[in-house]
C-alpha cells in the first residue's frame, strides 16, 4: 500500500490541517471518526481504487492541533465548512465516520449546497433515553478499544505509534483527539440535530455497524426518518462503532455501490 500524498492547509482562525489524498476518479471527501487518521486505513485505500479520496483532518485530530477555540455546534460547523472549502471539497461527495459523520450531517443541514452525495457512518447527534448512546468517556482506557470496535486488536494496532514517532507526543496527540471529540460531544446527549435533519437534501446513506456499542444500530432508522425519503440505511454485519475499520471491505463496497 503506497502512502497518500500529504499537504497542509492554512485555515481561518490560525488553524492548520493535514490533508491526505490518494487515487484517481471522482473526488470523494472523507471526515475521520473518533480516532481520526493516525494511519492511512485499508478502507480508504479500497475507495481510492475508484475515487480521488481527499481526507482533511478535523480540528484536534491527527494533523490538526488547534480546536480549543471551538465552543459550540455553530463553531464546529463553521470550522468544518472552512476545512471543506480549503480542501476544495465543496459540492463533492462526502463520507464521514462517527464524529466526522456528525459534522458532515451538520454541514449538509446548514449548507446543503456543500455536499453532493452523503455517507454517514454511525453519526452522533440524536439521543433516545430508552435506547441511550453510550458514554464513551466513562470506561477505563483498557476497555475502550473493545467498546468502540468489534476488532479491538486491529484498532490497537491502528492507534499504535509508528516506529519513528516519539511515544510521549503520540500519547499527547491521542489524548488531544479524544479531547476534541469530547469538546463537541460531551456529555453525549443530543446536539439539536433533530431540528435540522429535514434540511439535508443530499441523497444520504446511513451505514451502521451491527454491533455498535456506542451509538446503537437502531439510530440508523432514527436518522433516516429525520432526513426523509432521500435517506437509506445499510447495516454492516459483525462491525462495531468503527465499522470502516472493523469491516473495511464491506464498508468500502457499500459506499462504492451507493455512489455509482
Amino acid at each position, binding site marked *: 500500500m503506497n502512502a497518500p500524498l500529504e499537504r497542509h492547509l492554512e485555515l481561518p482562525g490560525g488553524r492548520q490541517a493535514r490533508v491526505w489524498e490518494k487515487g484517481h476518479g471522482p473526488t470523494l471527501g472523507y471526515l475521520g471518526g473518533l480516532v481520526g487518521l493516525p494511519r492511512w486505513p485499508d478502507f480508504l485505500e479500497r475507495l481510492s481504487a475508484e475515487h480521488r479520496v481527499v481526507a482533511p483532518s478535523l480540528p484536534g485530530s491527527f494533523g490538526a492541533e488547534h480546536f480549543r477555540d471551538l*465552543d459550540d455546534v455553530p463553531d464546529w460547523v463553521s470550522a468544518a465548512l472552512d476545512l471543506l472549502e480549503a480542501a476544495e471539497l465543496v459540492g463533492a461527495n462526502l463520507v464521514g465516520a462517527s464524529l466526522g459523520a456528525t459534522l458532515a450531517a451538520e454541514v449538509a443541514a446548514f449548507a446543503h449546497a456543500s455536499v453532493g452525495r452523503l455517507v454517514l457512518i454511525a453519526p452522533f447527534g440524536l439521543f433516545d433515553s430508552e435506547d441511550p448512546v453510550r458514554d464513551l*468517556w*466513562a470506561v*477505563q482506557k483498557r476497555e475502550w478499544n473493545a467498546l468502540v470496535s468489534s476488532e479491538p486488536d486491529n484498532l490497537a494496532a491502528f492507534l499504535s505509534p509508528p516506529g519513528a514517532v516519539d511515544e510521549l507526543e503520540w*500519547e499527547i496527540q491521542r489524548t488531544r483527539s*479524544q479531547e476534541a471529540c*469530547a*469538546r463537541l460531544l460531551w456529555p453525549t446527549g443530543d446536539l439539536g440535530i433533530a431540528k435540522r435533519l429535514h434540511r439535508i437534501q443530499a441523497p444520504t446513506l446511513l451505514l451502521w455497524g451491527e454491533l455498535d456499542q456506542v451509538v446503537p444500530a437502531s439510530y440508523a432508522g432514527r436518522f433516516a426518518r429525520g432526513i426523509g425519503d432521500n435517506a437509506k440505511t445499510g447495516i454492516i454485519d459483525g462491525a462495531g462503532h468503527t465499522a470502516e475499520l472493523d469491516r473495511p471491505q464491506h464498508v468500502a463496497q457499500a459506499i462504492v455501490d451507493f455512489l455509482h
Partner: protein
Amino acid sequence: MKLLWFHLMPHTRLPEDFAEKHSSVWVDIDPGLLDPAFAHELYNEFMDELEDAAELGFDGICVNEHHQNGYGLMPSPNLIAGALARRTRDAALVVMGNSLALYNPPLRVAEEFAMLDCISGGRLVAGFPVGTPMDTCYAYGQNPSQLRERYREAHDLIVRAWQAPEPFTWNGRYNKLRYVNPWPRPIQRPHPPIWIPGGGSVETWQWCVEADYVYANLSYYGHKLAAETLKGYWQEVAEQGREPNPYRAGFLQFVGVAESREEAIDLYREPAEYFYGRCLHVHPRWATPPGYATEATLRSRIESQVSKVANANSDARRQATRKPSMEEIVERGYVMVGSPDEVAEQLRAVATELNVGHLMLLMHFGNMDRQLTRYNSELFATRVLPQVHSLFDDQWEDRWWPQPIAPEARATPRSIAR
C-alpha cells in the same frame, strides 16, 4: 500557625462489603444506601461537631463541596456555612470551596459568599476549587475540555464583581451579563481571602503565586506525599521572587489523639480503616475525562519530578483501595496518631518541613461517632493546640486570614446570646 477543623461529612454506614459489592462511592453510588432520615441525623451531628470545634478554640472550621459522593454529603457547603455563621462567633468560616464552573451564572458564588461574609461579620475564607472530574464532568456534566477556561472566567468575574464600585457589563466567552451588581458586596475589602485547593499542577502553583492566593494541598494521603508537592510549590514561590511565608500554603492531615499511641491506634483503627477501605472506592472510569488535565500537566506528569508525586498519589490510591490496615495507614502517614505531646511534636515537625501555616485537620473521619470525635477534638484543643499555635507567628504575618469587623461591632445572633 492556624489550626482548622475540617469536616468531610461522610456517610457512616456504608456496608462492610461495600468495596466488593458496589462499583463506586462516587457518581453512581446506590441511592438506596442512604436513608434520608439517617442523613437528617448525620447533618445535625456533623454540624454540632463543627460548632464544637469553633467553641473549642480552633481557628477556623472548614467545609467543602462534593456531588453524588458517599464520603462527602455536602453538595452545598454554603448551606452548612450559612448555619454555622449564625452559631459561631469568632472562628473563620473556610469554605473550600465552590467549584466555580458549576454555578450558572458564577455570579451566584459572588452573591452567596458575600452573604456568608456579611452574616458572619467578615469571617469567610473563599475557596475556589476547579473540582474533581467526578464532581464536575460526570455528576454535573461539565465539558472537561472547557472546564478550566470556564473556571478562570468565573474567577475573573467574581473577583471583579466583589470590588466593582458600580454595576458593569460582562461580555465573557461563557457568560454574558449586562448588569453585574451583586448585592451585598462582601464585608472584607478588597475581597475575602482566596484559597485554591490543588494537587501537583505546575499551572496552579504559578497562578496561586502570581495572584497571591493561598495554595492548599488537600490530599487524603498525608504529609509524606504532600512533602514533594509542597516542595514544588515553594520552588515556584522562590522563582517568582516572593517571600516563603508559610501562610501562603495550606495542607490537610488526618489526626487521631489519645493518651498514648497504642490507645490512639486502638481507638481510631475502625474509622480509619473504614475511610480508606470504603470511602475511597472510586471507580477508575471516572478518573480521566479527556481534557480535564491540560497537555502541560500530562507532559509534566510523565516527564518531571511531579510525575513521581502524581504516580505516588495514584499508587497510594491503589494501595488504599486494597483496604490498608491501620498499621499501614499510620506507617504511610495518612493518619497521624499519638499522645497529645507526640502529635504536637509530629505536627510541629511536619509544618516546619512543609512550611505550611494553615493546617486543616480531619479529626472526624470514616464512621467515627460523636463521642470519639468529641474526645479527639477536645484532647487536641486542650493539649496539642497550645503547644503548636504560636509556630511561625514571631516571623510571619498571615495576610491570607479573614479580617472580620471588631467583635464589639458584630451582631450577636440569638442562638449565641442565650
